[in-house]
């Protein structure tokens, strides 16, 4: 169980979470950020710094919300994004990948 970004990030993209994340696991999509579920160490720093309350611990969400926000966050890495041939998988760092201007469809 890790942290996820919810749709409270959509069109906000404050990016404080990206700047502060100690393991560089918060990726920038077209309209919002996404936390890599395998790279996140669950330290909670993103939740501490996000001014929009968009970064949350999955375990703290009620089951219905978790069932929505968890997959919506993870889809950035597990689905084939528009214009790409394969899922991102585990890129090993957002700064390595750079920002993308797409979101999972």
């Amino acid at each position, binding site marked *: 169980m890790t942290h996820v970004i919810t749709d409270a990030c959509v069109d906000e993209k404050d990016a404080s979470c990206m700047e502060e994340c*100690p393991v560089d696991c918060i990726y920038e999509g077209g309209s919002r950020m996404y936390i890599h579920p395998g790279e996140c*160490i*669950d330290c*909670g*720093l993103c*939740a*501490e710094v996000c001014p929009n309350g968009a970064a949350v611990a999955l*375990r703290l969400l009620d089951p219905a919300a978790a069932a929505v926000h968890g997959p919506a966050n993870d889809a950035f890495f597990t689905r084939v994004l528009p214009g790409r041939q394969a899922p991102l998988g585990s890129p090993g760092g957002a700064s390595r990948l750079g920002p993308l201007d797409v979101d999972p469809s």
Partner: protein
Amino acid sequence: MTTHHPAPHHPAAHHAAAHHPRAHHPAVVDAEACSAALDRGETLPWTWYADPAITALEQERIFRRSWSYVGRTDQVAQPGQFFTCEVGGVPIVVTRDRSGGLNALVNVCRHRGAQVVREDCGTRKSLQCFYHAWTYGLDGSLRGVPRGDREADFDTSQLGLRRASVDTWGPFVFVHLDPEPAPLTEMLGELPELLAAGGIDLERMRFHHRVYYTIEANWKIAVENYLECYHCPVAHPGLADVLDVSPDAYELEVRPTFATHHGVVRDIPREAGYPVQGPVVEGQYHLVWPSLKVNVNPGQPNLSFGPVHPAGPERTTGYLDYFFGDDVDEAWIKAMLAFDDQVGAEDTDLVESVQRGASSGGVERGRLLLGSEHTISAFQRFVLGRLRED
């Protein structure tokens, strides 16, 4: 009397006493004899000025049980701003949290003991340990622990950064390790009134710069040199040109929590190193127990403020924050600082000489003049009293 010491660091400092046998801790078993010696005008034993066990005891019983000046409110004016410091050897981070609260937190991660904040100052949104990413809020509460949810009975509410006490006086921030210390105002006593009466309006003082210094001497010798002006006619000719340092004109006074000097500008001025005329008509120099120096030189509104700390039995570190009135011009500041630097350099030379002699083992203790140096006796009585406490 010392105003400040931008002292050069002397890597080849003399440590002659290193080869001499020293009294082992606790030398304070001789407290009654020491007290009687102070009554006779003698000093504390010189062995107390080079003994690591005494220095450790002073850290524990003096510096960890006193309010310490640690920095300025302007360093933590905005949410997220922080600075680090030490109190009695304990690392502290002072933060301004998002609610505007001022916090003094023990800068030691509750996990493995790493220092959570390693910068001197800056702005942060949270406090995260660089070792395992334990994440604390600016108020010190533990907000996140990687893998913490896998542990049974892991109560993060009990694992926030330890809190110290913090308080302010004007632009000055003070920290005390005790969560419920005696009020800061008790330590300051009448000092705020004395400064105001001397022409220093803290509301109109602006921070100018900080000077750090190291002295190769026990911290008590540095303090004791500050506490008397018996040496001024001999060792500080520039200062003696400005102030009347004769015993009937120069006032030394012991208050419950500090000692104070007042020196008036000479009636018949000698050629002074800087323009001494101005709204501040006298020099006032205070030493708040255990080691906070508060200096005001005559002339334009000016103030330097800062502590010394033991950095070992025979090394002292300190700093002074310089403030000037908001309308004091830079040329005056430059001239006054040159004067001040000269006095500081002279004092460093004196103090390091005393250390070499005192720690040599050649003489057991010094003999004071109680008419001109009772402030030293008062300080030593304070030290002795603290070292006798459990």
